[in-house]
């Protein structure tokens, strides 16, 4: 299993339409079941890298294989089936605020339904049960019929996790999942992700700002700077001084020289 990675990113580059370079020749292999944390400054390309994995962003160059299949030319149905198998967690939770928690969680299942059935709200009893179980898994079972905007930030993020569970994901991508949360709820949400990773063997890729949190939860830490992958170590080889290089972009180091 280790020689055939679940996610295989091969020399990808991303140049945005306005000429901004998002990623520069990044390669990364992630085996199934790993908990990978990507760290780096804002604008280093973390979000871009994450979103290329489920093709929310396309790449300018290079190839991405998932389970051995190249995904960069997927279209329509094939693309939707790929996305269905990859859960995504966002900084701002992205729940439908005026809908109930139940409907929000069921929304994670629509990829498995024909359009007319999901539009008419004809979710199967089994999936409704599954939604309730997914909520219980993140400790939100009793909020089934609450409106999403009645929940706190941490609760909303846990509902978002339950939503991705409905997808039966092989992979969960989390883009700054704790950036809008306080330290207490940060721990809860990260522990939820870790638990899914360990119990259900879901491969998790998380973007984080916080190095201590990364060290606490990651199996492996990857560092990006200005679109380049400059750091990649398993957690037992990581030491604290390493992060100096990641958090010292060329522009910020000149700022520091000016200031001193």
């Amino acid at each position: 299993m280790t020689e055939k990675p679940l996610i295989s990113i091969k020399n990808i580059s991303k140049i945005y339409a306005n000429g901004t370079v998002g990623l520069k020749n990044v390669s990364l292999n992630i085996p199934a079941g790993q908990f990978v944390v990507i760290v780096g400054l804002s604008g280093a390309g973390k979000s871009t890298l994450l979103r290329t994995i489920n093709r929310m962003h396309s790449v300018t160059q290079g190839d991405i294989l998932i389970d051995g299949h190249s995904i960069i030319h997927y279209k329509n149905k094939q693309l939707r089936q790929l996305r269905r198998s990859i859960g995504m967690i966002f900084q701002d939770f992205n729940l439908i605020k005026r809908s109930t928690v139940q409907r929000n969680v069921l929304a994670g299942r629509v990829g498995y339904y024909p359009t007319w059935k999901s539009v008419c709200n004809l979710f199967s009893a089994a999936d409704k049960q599954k939604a309730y179980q997914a909520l219980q898994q993140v400790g939100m079972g009793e909020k089934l019929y609450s409106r999403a905007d009645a929940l706190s930030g941490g609760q909303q993020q846990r509902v978002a996790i339950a939503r991705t569970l409905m997808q039966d994901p092989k992979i969960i991508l989390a883009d700054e999942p704790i950036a809008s949360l306080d330290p207490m709820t940060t721990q809860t949400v990260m522990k939820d992700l870790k638990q899914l990773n360990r119990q259900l063997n879901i491969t998790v890729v998380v973007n984080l700002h916080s190095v201590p949190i990364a060290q606490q939860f990651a199996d492996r830490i990857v560092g990006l700077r200005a679109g380049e992958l400059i750091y990649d170590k398993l957690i037992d080889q990581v030491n604290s001084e390493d992060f100096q290089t990641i958090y010292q972009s060329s522009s910020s180091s000149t700022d520091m020289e000016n200031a001193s």
Partner: protein
Amino acid sequence: MKQSLKNSQSMPSRPWLQRLHIKGWASFLIFLLLFKGSAQICDIQLSTFFQNLGQFFELIKKMLHPQWSYLAVVVAPISETIKMAIVGTTIGTLVAVPFCLLAARNIAINRFISSIVRFFLNIVRTIPDLMLAALFVAIVGIGSFAGVLTLAVFSFGMISKLFYEAVETIDPGPLEALQAAGANKIQMIVFAVLPQIFNNFISYFLYTLEINVRSSTVLGYLGAGGIGVYLQRSLDSFNYSQTAIIILAILVVVLIIDGLSNYLREKLL
């Protein structure tokens, strides 16, 4: 270090263009000139208005003696007007929903299609409702059916613009989440767009209904049914005591719709 100290002592200065708000003042001046020019072209003379103000009070005086017995006559046509407005607005709204989704830039399939749909909607809105009424009276004959068709087309033009502008203000987050979960376009709309704009839809619907009740009074002039026929009759025969009753009846309907709209918005929000 030196530079930052210097900066902290004297505030950064702005160019004089910004400091004196030249753009703002210039825009205001241009607006004043336009206003004055327009008033001249429109031949605005306040003196004429005040000289003949007596006419106005004469009319008001006559209307202050409403012929209450006329109320019984008015009930049937005003309820016809309401029915016309409800049916017309509903048809217009139902047709508007798919069009507004095609026209909204944030969810449209592509920019070309949304531009074409917008252009079509602009044409629909340009057609004056009086002309629509005349057209439909010519097609289906005098009566409330012509009125319903007129209101339907008018509502369609107005609602679709209000709707697509509402759709364009939604939070894109849930859309992204649905897309990332493998939803298709229609599923994204039903799960992530409609819940966000449902309240706007309701209040725009009621607003259009209110406008339609009022504008259907004018449509009566062209034989498109409803209270307008009676309004025209009373005005033509200088029977202002009856006109007063009709205006009061319309006011009551407008107030009811407004109250309903406020109530629903509070409930739904």
